[in-house]
């Protein structure tokens, strides 16, 4: 059977963020012809940083992990085989990360979110953030929200 058609792919957007401490800035956003596999679409609530695509009502349409973002430590590698890799604390996290998010019909914003175990006595997140309780004792915290600029 020859491949005859492909279903219309969901629009994807490449986002590049820059962070400096708890400040997050959306540096660029651009549409990209790219298939996003299930590996990069969060289906379960797990601790970590993510970027959500949301509709006008604030409902999350898709969530992708922001791996390597906001790291508070750095790896230092050994020069000689057999010597240990080690980590050092980064006093002031600063850097950039990128994600590719699905932007289905109705998407109008993206939010950088933190999903964390809501430990008793845990320090609440940064002042501007808003939080909602997720299932399984996890807390989802909005760190920053940005408008999506999509021309369909």
């Amino acid at each position, binding site marked *: 059977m020859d491949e005859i058609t492909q279903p219309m792919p969901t629009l994807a957007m490449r986002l*590049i963020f820059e962070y400096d401490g708890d400040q997050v800035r959306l540096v660029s956003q651009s549409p990209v012809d790219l*298939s*996003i*596999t*299930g590996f990069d679409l969060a289906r379960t609530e797990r*601790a970590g940083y993510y970027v959500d695509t949301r509709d006008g009502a604030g409902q999350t349409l898709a969530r992708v992990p922001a791996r390597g973002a906001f790291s508070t430590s750095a*790896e230092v590698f050994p020069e000689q085989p057999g010597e*240990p890799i080690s980590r*050092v604390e980064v006093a002031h996290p600063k850097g950039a990360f990128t994600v590719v998010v699905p932007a289905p019909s109705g998407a109008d914003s993206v939010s950088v979110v933190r999903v964390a175990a809501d430990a008793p006595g845990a320090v609440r997140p940064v002042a501007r953030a808003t939080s909602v309780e997720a299932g399984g004792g996890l807390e989802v915290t909005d760190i920053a929200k940005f408008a999506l600029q999509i021309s369909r």
Partner: protein
Amino acid sequence: MSTADGTVLGNTQIYGGAPRNRAFNVVLLADGFTAAQQNAFDTACTSFVNAFIGTPPFDELGPAINIFRVNVTSTDSGADDPVAGGGTGATARTYFDSSFGGNNIRRLLLCNNTTALQVAAAQVPEFTVVLVVVNSTIYGGSGGGVGTYSLANGATEIGIHEMGHTAFGLADEYAYYAGGNETGHDHHPAGEPSEPNVTTNTDRNTLKWRWAVASTTAIPTMSNPACGQEDTRPSPVPTGTVGLFEGAHYYHCGGFRPEYDCKMRALSVPFCRVCRQVIWNRIGPLATLQARARTPISVVARYPEHLDVFAVANNGRTMSNWWDQSTGWAGFFHVQGGFAAPGGSGSPVTSISRFSGHLDLFTVGTDNRVYSCWWDVTSGWHPWFRIGTLQCRPGSTVNVVSRYTNHLDLFTTASDGRIMSTWWHEGAGWANWFHVMSGVAANGATVTAIARYGSHLDVFTVGTDNRVWSCWWDDRSGWRAWFPIGGQVCRSDSTVTAVARFPDQIDLFTTASDGKIMSTWWNVRGGWAGWFQVSGGVASPGSPVTAIARYTGHLDLFVIGTDNRIDSTWWHEGGGWANWFNVSGGVGQSGGQVAAISRVADHIDLFTVGSNGVVYSTWWDVNGGWAGWFGLGVS
């Protein structure tokens, strides 16, 4: 030291030929290479390609990998090497502003990540990961949103290790934080890490990489007797043994890794089995699936905007793909390392959704035992586990019915053809397998079941006389004896497909000994009707008839015809049966199956294995009719 200190010359694809929009695209950026040193960068990129593609499992995933180099000139050669980090104090004006001595550690090589990501996006918009190659023989590198490494011997290993984090979400498996003599890292904190390659769980039955652990391997495999330091003793088991090794995720004790060694623990060693599987499940979904030719596909709609599809790869791997209205198709991934039994048409993965946030899967494993695993929205996938000790016929199907949310009933055939059942009830767990009313199925026949009510089961099979038999269970009267449904003689390996359009009606479909597509029905007023051929249809040998009821007065049938074309017909109340027609020119496998689902009344999704062994899909919508077939992968 900025983008004023150089020029982006352009990009060159140096490895791979996969479509960029369905590939794992690696971008290498030059920093600290002057215009006259671009050949050195080109050579460094070739070395990276050789190292990367030579590293399992990337050596097997090459068809889905592209590697690009982006030549960028810098005003000066090298990188900053500040004295504070133990360096020479040299400075270099480079495009990405690379510098050794991050955090006053010379080997920590950092660059301007934002510029690196912007250049990569401009040159190769579809990029997956970015590595900055720094023109210096001083050893160094780093990870994060952008990886860096220098030209020192062995530094490419840094790039591959960091890719483990940024592209595959793997955790560090080393058992210390600052080299091994630090304090505060004796015991891993409570709680299960989210990464797939580290755990705090020591229960063999729930271990997240249980699928890779041999029953003869001790759990834990290696325990640290002195939590004040890393355990540096040699492995007690042969290299490559997957088990539970204490010391991982920056802690001497309480955190465990899958193998003694792994590239996520130390450079210059291979990725462990579990990490290799994770990498497979990141890159593999970019491709379509080569499936077992005749093994049925199963599909579930947990809610109308979502589909979960389960198929068996041509090497027996239990595979899944899912579609969501918001994100499209996710690509096929290997479900918990499972393998389904060959034999007959091959054991399928059957699936059911008892509620919208949950999936239960069943198959017969390569040892011909029944296995199950489940996915839950709160906890993800759980490993395959064996249900009892029943020995099945090779290639048997495990059919499942959920009469209500907290209950499952399973049906399959034992190695001697006995029709066997068990059930699961929340709180009570799995019951023992039992022989259903002394029934025996014909060789290759499946056992199908439907629940018209929460307190009732109807079961169907082809008996050893090649006739259709049924029995039923009711919670008031228990199991009733098997009885034949008319005298229809079937192929011995026929499936009896049952549909209840409403609780007091059953429609049956199967194939006669000569392949004719036959049907009968039962309703509470008239009992069983006689068998009749459906619109003159004939199935290819062994092809089952798939039937769905989009609403109470309508049936849609699908089958692989004698010319291997994918054919359909429908019945509409008051109008009778339509003629068979070919669905969008589709051609399947002789004896293959067409899986169908109606997630909303005016929509049908179909799945089958095409003539080239690839899993295909199409859909019908009341507004647009039938779409064309497409190779099912990621969209």
